[in-house]
């Protein structure tokens, strides 16, 4: 009974490594272990990004699901995702509105800025001591405001820029060049440090706000931190990979069902690895379906969803 989490964790790790290895030696150009350009400029960034981004999204989903005690919570819950998208929308489509000196600001920075503004709004609400249900509803409103704003922007923008934005918003782990990878890894590293702050507190929080407080948690500060960490993770990923929603919601469920524990110190790495594996898995599928030009999000929905649904359905007793 006690070994189950360990076994599960190790298998997730093995799957992740296996998928990475496959993706490194095999791609659209077939088996290829020679061409340095393809290996290091194309495959390596893609693998790194999928690995980290998948894990980061999944972890942020876990944080939000535990915090809100809501199985529907995910990276797009509080409008953080939408905020980042809005930033990118400005960056991509801003050409027609913004003064020239603004246009140079990179997509990533703009995504961060967008997510940050939503974060400040949320932080303000947290500081007002709103209940979690108020927070979730207000977050929903922020999200729908932001996405409407984006669609208005899309409406007002020349088609080529819109096309660029729409392509971006289909989500992809392949958009990064080898030059971007260090930045992204830096963000991911910071994100993982952030994540490491959470397990103990989150464990306390699981049994309710009152008990958490009685065990020495500053609940207000914790909420603030949690929203900060989620914003940071989601914004980092969205900035580089576009909005990818599915992994963040489903990976936590999957990991918890395998691992059958609530201890976040065990669950968090498992969730991270499941997120990574899901991301790598879509990359693998993309190789075989390249002629259909499917988006990452579509593959997750089209192939990931039924597979996961079948698994969950079979395992329904434990849900």
């Amino acid at each position: 009974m006690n070994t189950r989490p360990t076994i599960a964790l190790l298998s997730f790790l093995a799957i992740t490594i296996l998928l990475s290895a496959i993706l490194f030696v095999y791609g659209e150009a077939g088996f290829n272990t020679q061409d340095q350009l393809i290996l290091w400029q194309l495959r390596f960034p893609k693998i790194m990004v999928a690995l980290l981004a998948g894990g980061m999204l999944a972890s942020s989903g876990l944080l939000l699901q535990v915090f809100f005690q809501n199985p529907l919570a995910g990276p797009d819950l509080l409008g953080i995702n939408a905020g980042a998208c809005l930033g990118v929308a400005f960056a991509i489509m801003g050409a027609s509105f913004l003064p020239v000196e603004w246009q140079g600001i990179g997509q990533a920075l703009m995504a961060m800025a967008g997510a940050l503004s939503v974060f400040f709004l949320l932080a303000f609400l947290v500081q007002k001591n709103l209940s979690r249900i108020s927070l979730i509803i207000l977050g929903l409103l922020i999200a729908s405001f932001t996405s409407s704003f984006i669609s208005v922007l899309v409406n007002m923008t020349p088609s080529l820029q819109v096309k660029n934005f729409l392509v971006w918003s289909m989500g992809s782990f392949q958009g990064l060049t080898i030059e971007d990878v260090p930045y992204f890894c830096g963000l991911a590293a910071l994100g993982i440090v952030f994540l490491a702050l959470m397990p103990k507190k989150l464990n306390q929080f699981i049994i309710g706000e009152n008990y958490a407080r009685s065990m020495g948690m500053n609940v207000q500060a914790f909420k603030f931190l949690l929203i900060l960490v989620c914003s940071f993770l989601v914004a980092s990923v969205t900035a580089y990979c576009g909005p990818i929603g599915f992994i963040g919601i489903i990976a936590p469920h999957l990991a918890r069902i395998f691992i059958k524990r609530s201890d976040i110190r065990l669950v968090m790495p498992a969730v991270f690895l499941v997120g990574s594996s899901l991301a790598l898995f879509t990359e693998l599928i993309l190789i075989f379906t390249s002629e259909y030009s499917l988006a990452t999000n579509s593959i997750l929905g089209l192939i990931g969803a039924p597979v996961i649904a079948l698994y969950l359905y079979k395992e329904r007793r434990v849900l």
Partner: protein
Amino acid sequence: MITFKNLSVGFDNKSILANLSGELKRGDLIALMGINGVGKSCFLKTISGLHPAIDGDINLNERSFTRITPAEIAKKLAVVLTDKIHADFLRVHELIALGRSPYTNFWGDFLEEDGQAVEEIVGLLNIKDLNQRLFSDLSDGQKQKVLLARALVQTPDYLFLDEPTTYLDIPSKIELMKLLKFVSREKHTGILFSTHDLSLIEKEVDQIWLIDSAGVLHKKSPDEMNRSGLLAKNFNI
């Protein structure tokens, strides 16, 4: 020592009980009584810092609650409430271990002393066989014991319990009273707990604090309480 002066407790700025004053010393074992809805739970939550006081001061060792960090308070105080816990896949030993979290390091790792503290309490409460069970799959009484264990492993100086004997069977109730007495005497823990079970506690506690229906807090030893006739009057018995 926890002292409170002119304390008003209540919800949404409407006070339910006003002008409460008193003190809880380490080693005290005190039962809080009063009819349903008089404000016991609210008082307990307030004095343990979980619920904002409407007015008045609460001091822990002469320092106002508002000046102490939650982390410091957590090493001094522990509580058991009547809140239900909803957590999937939460195992009993994990839940009890959480009680040690004010003492554990950044990751929440256990040292030997943490393990011993847990071991001891789990033994005293006789719940060793529940250790690997899921909390959500326990019976009501089992859950109650586990929650008590979590608070006790926190090795607090002061312990606030809201109706701790709820759902417990007769032997467990008696055991619990013995345990509380033991903890208050041997570990010098100051314990304040609400209860409706007069016969069970009469012999064990140092004081009974009775909130009468007018909201006045009476503090007397069980004997004095009986002689004063306050209990009989308040409970129509």
